């Protein structure tokens, strides 16, 4: 209503005098502008939104520039000529200031600033721009007399409208930060300013209608701003506060719901924890139940004890039978254990032990004793530091005790076994290079328990001659996983023989991780083995001599034949020489024959000596033609065959390779087998001996002796090659056993077979 009256008054004034109208209208808007500033200045402390700070300061300066504009207006005559241009320039500056401020203010909707700083910035900016108009005259011309508005002026009015458009758009975007009414007033102000500007682009004369409408709109626009700030700061000073409060409350509600969620979450977690705790408690209970046989709670001062029912039951009593007093317990502790138990309690009471723990025996109701693990702790002390209350558990460990005793016994037995076997165990850890040895093994090595051992230390003990061998064996074991070998070590300057049996363990990637070994001192065994070797050689020799002894008649015959011939020939020679005209050619032939027979006799002796020769314990292996060996034996046996009237057949392969062996020993085998064959044919109507040699397979040759004798008991064929088994009445039972040993030492095989119902073939093979 007031506005309508005002506008009507102004309209009437314009009809009367336009200058009056303009001056009044402008002053009106200038008053509003200054009021805006004063208003903002006074209520700034309530203004949370610093958008209004910008407006406050901006409208002060806009008002100031508008005042200059009013004073410079055409017809005022204050600034001399060119009034209208100046007034227009100032108008443009005021509108720029207004529109730019409305845009910039948006920036401070969510930000803070200080009035003093703003004031300073606005002052400098306006001082600079106004000086360009009045002092330096640099500002472009906006109005020319007789022509009207310059294009510069019109273009800038459009630019200002565009800036205002942006400001409006920005305001709408930030509508969340403003009260609805304030928002409408601010938007209204910007829109009326835009409309006013569009009116100012049109006028030709400063006194035109468009100009007048423009000023009306301008007053309206300023008024809207003023109204908005009044609304914000005075009329609804708390609506924005409440607004903020509501927003805070909303936030608070959000926080609250967040808090509630948090509380819920925490509660859930807490419940879970409680559940877990309960679960743990239950578990502990179960564990106690499972591992202990009862709980007790002892008032040390009064001697009163709570015994759990499980404790009571575990000893075979009922609750009624057990008085709640420590004397009951003292009564059932094994008398032998009581002093120890008391001592342990005392130690705990006097703080020497943090936990009372003892293994003692408790008497059951049945009278038998059980082993018990008693554990407890004082949980309350009096002021003097004396125990008040003690809580503990009891567990039946009878079974464990038994197992422990059994383990100790088994360990002792094992220890004894190692002692008897002169053995020790050890294991080697590859990562640390440490060897862990059993006591037995340290005794073998003569190394004290205290010294930690490494593999290299062991190697130092190995006999220098065996070192390479041991290292090589170890390398092979790393690939193959195990070894079993014998070597010498030197302990305290004495050579000792050990046998090591080792197994290597590998991890998932196939890298050796551990070696487990048993090492045995076999020195005594080695010595006796060497003795046995000598004895075996002796025995073998004796057996050979015995076999040959049986053949003495034949051997004598074999020697007598050439000797007889020699004697005959020599006598004849002598006789011929007594003749007056001796036949020299005949005598020459005689000598040739004598030499031949002599050689024949000496051959027999050589072969015999070879057979009777004592072989050394070390095997003398040489390359041997097996057929020659057989012929050598047959040379001695020939007469025996004749004597026994035995037909001899030889099937000796002449394409056999040489074999490695001990000639004497192999001849002994051949001799023995033939001798057995001859014995087998004793008293048989058909007596025929076959000796053959052949290639058994790619890598073995075979020598066989077949007779037409009585054959052998096939059921006892297994026994034939064992010592002291004989089918002969006066047999020692060593012959075939020795043959077996000899052929085995040659890596061959010896055996017997019966090809037909009559007779036996004994054979042996030798590797090529």
């Amino acid at each position: 209503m007031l506005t309508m009256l005002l506008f009507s008054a102004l309209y009437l004034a314009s009809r009367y005098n336009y200058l009056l109208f303009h001056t009044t209208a402008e002053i009106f808007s200038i008053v509003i502008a200054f009021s805006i500033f004063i208003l903002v200045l006074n209520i700034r402390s309530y203004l949370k939104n610093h958008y209004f700070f910008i407006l406050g300061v901006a409208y002060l300066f806009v008002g100031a520039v508008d005042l200059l504009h009013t004073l410079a207006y055409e017809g005022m005559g204050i600034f001399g000529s060119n009034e209208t241009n100046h007034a227009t320039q100032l108008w443009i500056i005021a509108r720029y200031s207004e529109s730019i401020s409305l845009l910039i203010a948006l920036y401070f909707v969510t930000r803070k600033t200080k009035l003093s700083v703003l004031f300073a910035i606005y002052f400098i900016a306006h001082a600079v721009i106004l000086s360009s108009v009045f002092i330096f005259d640099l500002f472009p011309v906006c109005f020319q007399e007789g022509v009207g508005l310059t294009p510069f002026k019109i273009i800038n009015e459009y630019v200002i409208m565009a800036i205002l458009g942006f400001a409006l758009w920005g305001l709408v975007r930030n509508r969340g930060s403003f009260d609805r009414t304030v928002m409408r007033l601010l938007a209204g102000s910007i829109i009326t300013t835009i409309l006013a500007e569009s009116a100012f682009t049109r006028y030709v004369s400063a006194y035109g209608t468009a100009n007048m409408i423009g000023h009306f709109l301008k007053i309206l626009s300023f008024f809207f701003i003023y109204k908005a700030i009044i609304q914000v700061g005075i009329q609804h000073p708390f609506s924005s506060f409440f607004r903020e409060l509501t927003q805070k409350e909303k936030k608070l509600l959000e926080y609250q719901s967040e808090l509630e969620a948090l509380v819920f979450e925490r509660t859930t977690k807490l419940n879970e924890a409680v559940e877990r705790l309960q679960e743990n408690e239950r578990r502990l209970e179960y564990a106690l139940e499972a591992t202990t046989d009862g709980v007790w709670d002892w008032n040390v001062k009064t001697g009163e004890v709570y015994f759990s029912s499980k404790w009571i039951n575990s000893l075979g009593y009922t609750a009624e039978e057990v008085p709640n007093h420590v004397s009951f317990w003292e009564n059932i502790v094994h008398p032998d254990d009581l002093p120890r138990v008391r001592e342990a309690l005392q130690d705990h009471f006097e703080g020497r032990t943090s936990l009372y723990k003892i293994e003692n025996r408790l008497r059951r109701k049945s009278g038998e004793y059980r082993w018990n693990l008693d554990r407890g702790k004082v949980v309350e002390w009096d002021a003097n530091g004396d125990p008040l209350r003690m809580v503990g558990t009891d567990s039946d460990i009878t079974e464990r005790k038994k197992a422990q005793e059994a383990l100790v016994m088994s360990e002792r037995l094992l220890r004894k076994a190692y002692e008897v076997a002169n053995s020790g165990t050890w294991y080697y850890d590859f990562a640390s290079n440490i060897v862990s040895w059993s006591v037995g093994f340290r005794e073998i090595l003569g190394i004290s328990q205290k010294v930690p051992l490494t593999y290299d230390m062991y190697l130092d003990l190995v006999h220098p001659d065996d070192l390479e061998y041991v290292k090589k064996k170890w390398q092979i074991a790393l690939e193959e996983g195990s070894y079993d070998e014998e070597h010498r070590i030197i302990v305290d300057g004495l050579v000792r023989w050990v046998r090591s049996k080792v197994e290597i363990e590998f991890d998932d990637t196939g890298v050796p991780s551990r070696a487990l070994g048993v090492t045995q001192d076999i020195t005594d065994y080695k010595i006796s083995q060497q003795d046995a070797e000598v004895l075996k050689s002796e025995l073998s020799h004796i057996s050979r001599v015995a076999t040959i002894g049986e053949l003495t008649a034949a051997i004598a015959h074999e020697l007598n034949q050439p000797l007889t011939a020699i004697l005959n020939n020599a006598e004849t020679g002598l006789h011929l020489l007594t003749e007056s005209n001796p036949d020299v050619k005949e005598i020459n032939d005689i000598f040739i024959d004598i030499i031949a027979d002599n050689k024949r006799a000496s051959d027999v002796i050589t072969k015999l000596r070879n057979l009777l020769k004592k072989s050394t314990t070390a095997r003398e292996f040489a390359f041997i033609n097996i057929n020659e060996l057989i012929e050598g034996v047959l040379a001695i046996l020939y007469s025996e065959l004749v004597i026994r009237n035995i037909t001899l057949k030889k099937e000796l392969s002449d394409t056999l390779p040489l074999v490695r062996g001990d000639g004497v020993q192999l001849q002994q085998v051949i001799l023995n087998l033939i001798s057995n064959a001859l014995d087998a044919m004793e008293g048989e109507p058909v007596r025929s001996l076959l000796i053959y040699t052949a290639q058994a397979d790619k890598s073995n040759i075979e020598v066989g002796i077949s007779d037409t004798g009585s054959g052998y008991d096939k059921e006892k064929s297994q026994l034939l090659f064992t010592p002291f088994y004989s089918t002969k009445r006066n047999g020692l039972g060593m012959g075939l056993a020795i043959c077996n040993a000899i052929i085995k030492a040659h890596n061959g095989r010896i055996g017997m077979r019966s090809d037909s119902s009559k007779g036996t073939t004994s054979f042996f093979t030798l590797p090529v």
Partner: protein
Amino acid sequence: MKPNALVVVIDDDPSIRKSLKRLLHSRGYTVELFNSAQEFLRKNDFIRSSPCCLILDVRMPGLDGMDLHRELNKRNISVPIVFISGHGDIPMSVKAMKRGAVDFLPKPFDTKKLLEAIESAIDKDAAIKKSQKDFQKIKKLIEKLTPREYETFRWLITGMLNKQIAGEMGVTEKTIKVHRARVMEKLQVDSVALLVRIADKAGIEPAKKI
């Protein structure tokens, strides 16, 4: 030494055979060599004609010396044998001597002993061969006697008088005298004593009184 005396050597050892042949040749014997008993058994007629002996090895493949000796005795082939043996033992030599061996020499033997044994064997064989000849001759003479003369011969060797013989035979004394003269003529003897010797050689028993 007997001329043409033959020594047969049977031995499976060629050295022995050869050396023995050489030795015996040098002593003037004829020598025949055999390497087995079987071979000798197949061919042995030649030993009848002249004095001879066998040198026989005891141990030989197949038929041995002892077997051959037994076989010869079985076949009634009489020849003196000297055994030689490479490994002879006493029981074997005793057995051989019992069966009529001349000697048993273990190898190696003394040549002189062998030669002596051979000589004595050949002498023995010569004597045997001579007596065999005499016996054959007497047998032929006796075969010429008539049965009556043969009976008279048997009575004559009893040493009885003609008159007694006539009485025993139931004829006259004169008839006996004629028979006696005929027997003496046919048997080419001139005394009863010689008649007795012939009868002895021929193995004729004197007649006996009934």
